[in-house]
């Protein structure tokens, strides 16, 4: 298995080398700018000073700032110094000084020590440029030594290309795909299920044993019925296909996933709100018909979860995240002009004095990190995560313990629906916790589910839209699970972090369309040239595009153990039961009164669908709260089966900040030689030993040469790594105890000491 994997990686990296061999090079300059296929240099400026913060000591690096139609890049003059082998976890597409245009969050200019947001046409050009990135990096470029002409060109160029609204067709995605066409080979062995064929859906139905009651339909082939929905999807078997067409796919229960006990997770986009009584009547009878199909045996009782009301609004998510990210967008403080200044007799310790920096809006954090917790809380980002996890647990309880179907209802069924249904599947279906399973899940629920990545990330910079990080919220929820139950997941938090970064790399099609329809219609070349093949867009799941196989080992959790395979006969009999489920109080007496309750509720379902929402009908029910509590407590009181149902802790102290993603660029947050890396390296070492042992055994048994296993050598010598590993490699790990100023000279003469070095102290005597 692992050999196959290694071979696969090898192969993919070969392909990839081909992709990048046709990089154009700008030959005049000493430092080369690496351009991707199809990438064009737009403007540049030389003698730009980039501030580098190194162990609280700040200095500058001269170099060239360039802007292409893909990225903003800084090419330092002494690149070689930084380009040492410490940067092993290198992204092949994005260098450490590269910012893709889509990754730019805010641009500030400093005019006479004052920081201002830059946008539109500028009358005056700043002496310093500060760029906040969506992956929370902060870059500062000093333009004081740059020619005025170049300053104008680069600043206005950057502002224009990162802020002006864009046409979809002008995304770099297409230029890249066009230019790289010849070299791009469709990845044959990426096992991620893309859900773009009927077969994929049938496979998923079979895997979850949902094929008894649900069927994959191709009614939307060619997007005839609806542009929001994928070409293929799954509906309850008795549902007539005309129904799908009736309201362009609205009001149709669409299957997401089936639980081992037969209950299913469904989603439905709400019917358009109508005032006209006549239409309302029609809608009502339509829904009645739908309801009749899904609310009779063999289908389980349906519970509706209306995610559009009483749960979470996109606005809340947006506000919370923008507050939250400010906590981490730490620019370093404005330094005085770059020159060696006088030192006074008072000596400082850099760590402490980090608390006394003049505030530069963002650096207030360091002044106030005594208030860290209340700032964190006031952003309410963690609380939003808690609410999502809680909702997912509630739904899990309904499906697992009460054997009910749950129907998620949302206006377009493409935001919170995606989030909640993915979370539920992640908790209930161990397959989703493998890397392939997780990628397939995202493909199924988010990409094919029609999550508007383009709009939510505002990749096109449309003025009327704002970034709503729903997908990031999902990743953060997943991180909480990964963090609380590390052995249950095949992927690591580093995987999640680089996945979140990939959201802004416009060479992958995965996150750059609003719907599969939009993707498919834009795949053809300009001018509907029917002769040429459709564009071949890369998918983000091809990790070899971004990382070398060696770096990819960091995406794989060494603690993960695959589910032991039962032999086939056994499996049929056992039917994949969860350990926990057996011990849960699955009482008949409890569910019978609910039958009545939910009968009544179907009326409300209809009312809800018709826009007359009755608030808090379900959520405030005490009984349901009690069920939730009981379910939650009883699960947590037992030991965890990592291949069974998995619930997160959601109490106040248990939800954490995703430190790797949010703190990785902050030098002060670096713990040299510390952090989880230290443990991880020890663990990998042990794993390696086991692996080599096993290989030797295999060798003995099969008497053939086993291929060399991939050794995770990135973690060698972890003492030299820091808690921010594998990110923040800019830091050289030499220099933390900075004892600044000349005052020390007086204290002790270093030379003197060096001379005495040859005296050897015998520890034994005395």
């Amino acid at each position, binding site marked *: 298995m692992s050999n196959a994997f290694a071979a696969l990686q090898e192969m993919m990296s070969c392909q990839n080398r081909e992709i990048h061999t046709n990089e154009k090079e700008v030959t005049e300059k000493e430092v080369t700018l690496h351009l991707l296929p199809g990438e064009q240099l737009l403007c540049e400026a030389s003698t730009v000073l980039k501030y580098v913060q190194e162990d609280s000591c700040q200095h500058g690096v001269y170099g060239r700032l360039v802007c292409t139609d893909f990225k903003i890049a800084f090419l330092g003059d002494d690149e070689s110094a930084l380009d040492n082998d410490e940067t092993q976890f290198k992204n092949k597409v994005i260098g450490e000084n590269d910012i893709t245009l889509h990754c730019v969050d805010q641009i500030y200019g400093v005019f006479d020590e004052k920081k201002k947001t830059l946008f539109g046409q500028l009358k005056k050009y700043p002496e310093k440029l500060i760029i906040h990135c969506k992956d929370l990096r902060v870059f500062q470029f000093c333009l004081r030594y740059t020619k005025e002409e170049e300053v104008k060109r680069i600043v206005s160029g950057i502002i224009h290309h990162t802020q002006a609204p864009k046409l979809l067709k002008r995304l770099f995605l297409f230029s890249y795909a066009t230019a790289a066409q010849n070299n791009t080979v469709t990845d044959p062995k990426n096992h991620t299920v893309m859900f773009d064929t009927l077969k994929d859906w049938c496979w998923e139905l079979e895997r979850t044993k949902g094929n008894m009651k649900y069927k994959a339909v191709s009614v939307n082939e060619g997007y005839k019925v609806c542009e929001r929905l994928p070409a293929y999807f799954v509906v309850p078997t008795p549902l007539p296909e005309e129904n799908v067409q009736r309201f362009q796919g609205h009001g149709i229960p669409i299957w997401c996933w089936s639980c081992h006990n037969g209950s299913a997770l469904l989603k439905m986009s709400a019917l358009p709100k109508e005032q006209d009584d006549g239409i309302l009547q029609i809608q009502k009878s339509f829904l009645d018909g739908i309801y009749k199909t899904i609310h009779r045996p063999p289908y389980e009782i349906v519970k509706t979860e209306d995610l559009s009301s009483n749960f979470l609004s996109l606005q809340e998510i947006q506000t919370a995240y923008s507050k939250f990210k400010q906590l981490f967008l730490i620019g370093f403080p404005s330094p005085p002009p770059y020159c060696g200044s*006088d030192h006074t007799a008072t000596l*400082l310790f850099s760590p*402490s004095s980090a608390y006394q920096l003049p505030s530069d809006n963002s650096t207030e954090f360091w002044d106030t990190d005594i208030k860290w917790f209340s700032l964190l809380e006031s952003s309410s980002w*963690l609380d939003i995560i808690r609410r999502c996890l809680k909702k997912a647990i509630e739904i899990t309880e309904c499906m697992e313990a009460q054997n009910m179907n749950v129907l998620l209802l949302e206006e377009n069924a493409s935001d919170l629906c995606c989030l909640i249904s993915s979370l539920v599947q992640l908790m209930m279906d161990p397959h989703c916790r493998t890397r392939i399973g997780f990628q397939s899940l995202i493909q199924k629920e988010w990409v094919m589910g029609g999550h508007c990545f383009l709009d939510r990330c505002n990749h096109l910079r449309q003025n009327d839209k704002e970034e709503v990080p729903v997908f990031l919220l999902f990743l953060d929820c997943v991180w909480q699970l990964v963090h609380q139950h590390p052995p249950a997941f095949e992927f690591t938090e580093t995987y999640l972090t680089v996945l979140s970064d990939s959201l802004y790399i416009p060479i992958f099609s995965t996150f750059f369309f609003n719907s599969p329809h939009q993707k498919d219609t834009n795949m053809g070349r300009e001018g509907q040239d029917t002769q040429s093949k459709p564009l071949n867009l890369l998918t983000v799941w091809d990790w070899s595009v971004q990382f070398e196989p060696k770096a990819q080992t960091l995406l794989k959790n060494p603690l993960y153990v695959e589910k032991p395979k039962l032999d086939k006969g056994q499996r049929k009999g056992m039917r994949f039961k969860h350990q926990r489920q057996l011990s849960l109080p699955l009482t008949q007496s409890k569910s019978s009164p609910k039958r009545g309750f939910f009968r009544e509720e179907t009326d409300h379902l209809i009312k809800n669908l018709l826009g007359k929402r009755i608030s808090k009908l379900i959520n405030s029910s005490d009984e349901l709260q009690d069920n939730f509590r009981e379910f939650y407590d009883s699960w947590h009181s037992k030991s965890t089966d990592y291949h069974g149902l998995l619930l997160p802790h959601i109490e106040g102290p*248990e939800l954490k900040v995703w*430190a790797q993603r949010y703190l990785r660029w902050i030098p002060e947050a670096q713990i040299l*030689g510390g*952090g989880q890396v230290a443990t991880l390296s020890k663990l990998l070492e*042990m794993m390696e030993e086991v692996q080599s042992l096993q290989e030797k055994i295999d060798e003995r048994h099969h008497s053939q040469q086993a291929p060399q296993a991939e050794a995770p050598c990135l973690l060698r010598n972890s003492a030299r790594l820091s808690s921010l590993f594998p990110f923040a490699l800019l830091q050289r790990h030499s220099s933390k105890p900075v004892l600044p100023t000349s005052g020390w000279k007086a204290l002790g003469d270093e030379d003197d000491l060096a001379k005495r*070095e040859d005296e050897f102290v015998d520890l034994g005597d005395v």
Partner: protein
Amino acid sequence: MWWGGRGQSFNIAPQKEEPEMGSVQENRMPEPRSRQPSSCLASRCLPGEQILAWAPGVRKGLEPELSGTLICTNFRVTFQPCGWQWNQDTPLNSEYDFALVNIGRLEAVSGLSRVQLLRPGSLHKFIPEEILIHGRDFRLLRVGFEAGGLEPQAFQVTMAIVQARAQSNQAQQYSGITLSKAGQGSGSRKPPIPLMETAEDWETERKKQAARGWRVSTVNERFDVATSLPRYFWVPNRILDSEVRRAFGHFHQGRGPRLSWHHPGGSDLLRCGGFYTASDPNKEDIRAVELLLQAGHSDVVLVDTMDELPSLADVQLAHLRLRALCLPDSSVAEDKWLSALEGTRWLDYVRACLRKASDISVLVTSRVRSVILQERGDRDLNGLLSSLVQLLSAPEARTLFGFQSLVQREWVAAGHPFLTRLGGTGASEEAPVFLLFLDCVWQLLQQFPADFEFSEFFLLALHDSVRVPDTLTFLRNTPWERGKQSGQLNSYTQVYTPGYSQPPAGNSFNLQLSVWDWDLRYSNAQILQFQNPGYDPEHCPDSWLPRPQPSFMVPGPPSSVWLFSRGALTPLNQLCPWRDSPSLLAVSSRWLPRPAISSESLADQEWGLPSHWGACPLPPGLLLPGYLGPQIRLWRRCYLRGRPEVQMGLSAPTISGLQDELSHLQELLRKWTPRISPEDHSKKRDPHTILNPTEIAGILKGRAEGDLG
């Protein structure tokens, strides 16, 4: 020697009456109507312990529920599960023992009502169905009583607990267990932790640190310099005991400057009390004081320990708030939890300690100099900082042995008033400084998981031991009191001479046990958990280039004297406050003007630095902890133990929980290495040693541990 035990079980033989407990007659027979094998219960008593009442009950709150017996004695409340194998490993039970002083709150539940039990009178005709014991160490014990005729017993035991607790507040001093270990051979597994009560201990430790310019002073052998000081301590070679005596008189409570730790690079870390400002030292006294402080170095840095650190009252208040917050029924809503946690300020104090310790370790490691920690009392924060600095700078202090010796030396022997600070005397000066220290150590542990030989469980065990009345380690305020108890002062007249060695203590029958005798309360399996599986001594290569110690300087005025305060060094004109204007100094408690520098100018100086400062290499083995807001976390496994939801799942190292996890992991392991046949074991290492389940468990737990509090 004193550890020389051979037998697997301690003989808790019926001792002769304790001298201190003479009034309390051992009552080994429980009440006649008890239906349990009472002799069995009684045999579990400590010497001098009396069973007051007991009742059968069921331990609740954790799966599975355990049935057993709830016993109240005059020292503790303990729950003994049925089938608890007495003669197994541990004479005492670490998990269900609640010393009476440790009971923070007592509640009884009957039906839907819940009563807090304060006085014996508060329990009128209330038949408790369940009793909740909240420990001041954040533990919680829930015992339910079964119905069916046993109500009177339940009532009785509850009453007994309430009464015993009320009485225990009356400053009842327990003398610790004296167990006979005689006849237990020499099969000791580990070197004993030096108690630093003999001159040899100090001499051995001095040699270990290669502190060549120092010697063991016997000036306090009779505790006549200071009762709070240990009998022995280290002073510079060249200074006579008479000078030491003379100089120490000018420090608060006679706690003059002593060596805490000698850095292999040549620096020395000293600690001392505040200058006794009212005294009027003569010239020679001042010279002696200066010599002691200078310790042969030309550079001297005085560290004002109290500066920027919380006061004792602050620590106490924060701890009380933290405890209130972590109570299982604390009313804080989930979404307000973080600000409530911040409101306790506990983590803020932890941060302050770490920051200061980190700065001081840079001072100690960067140049050869004498760094003096000065705190007025020299018994609280000095110990905390000095221990933390050693943990950060000395890899050997991070081993199990090293850490225990460190605590014994810098806290126990140095006279940290444990009894007072932990509220044992009922005095107002309660402040859990030691627990603050443990929290700091925990932070280090989770920031540097590969650098410590001991685990979180060890810290928890230590945390829980501070109020357990079985050893004297934490039950006395000063080495003098402790010595008085253990009869060590018989050697009053002995004077240390280099060739002299004390008679082996093993000869004496009354061996005082210390908290480091873990097998008293922890089973072997639990003690195994004290080892950190992720510890990797190679991780921080211990490649100290021992810089030669500068030749001992000719006594003379130091060439530079600095005060370290607020993260900055300020030059001082003189070392002692008295010489020039004693009257003025006597008035102000802080004898030096603070540097009046605004934060702006500080920052300006900071940022104009040449980049080559970055070239100074990080000394190997030095840990520099993170202390930013997101890096300081809540020690959940300690403080949240009482919460039901935390008791489950990710919870404390309960035996049952660990067993479950272990068996689960072992199962995983079997799947992991399915085809290793026995003959392969010889090829490399035994796979079971490679992936020892305990190690994996620890690692998993470590990883499950939160990133942010």
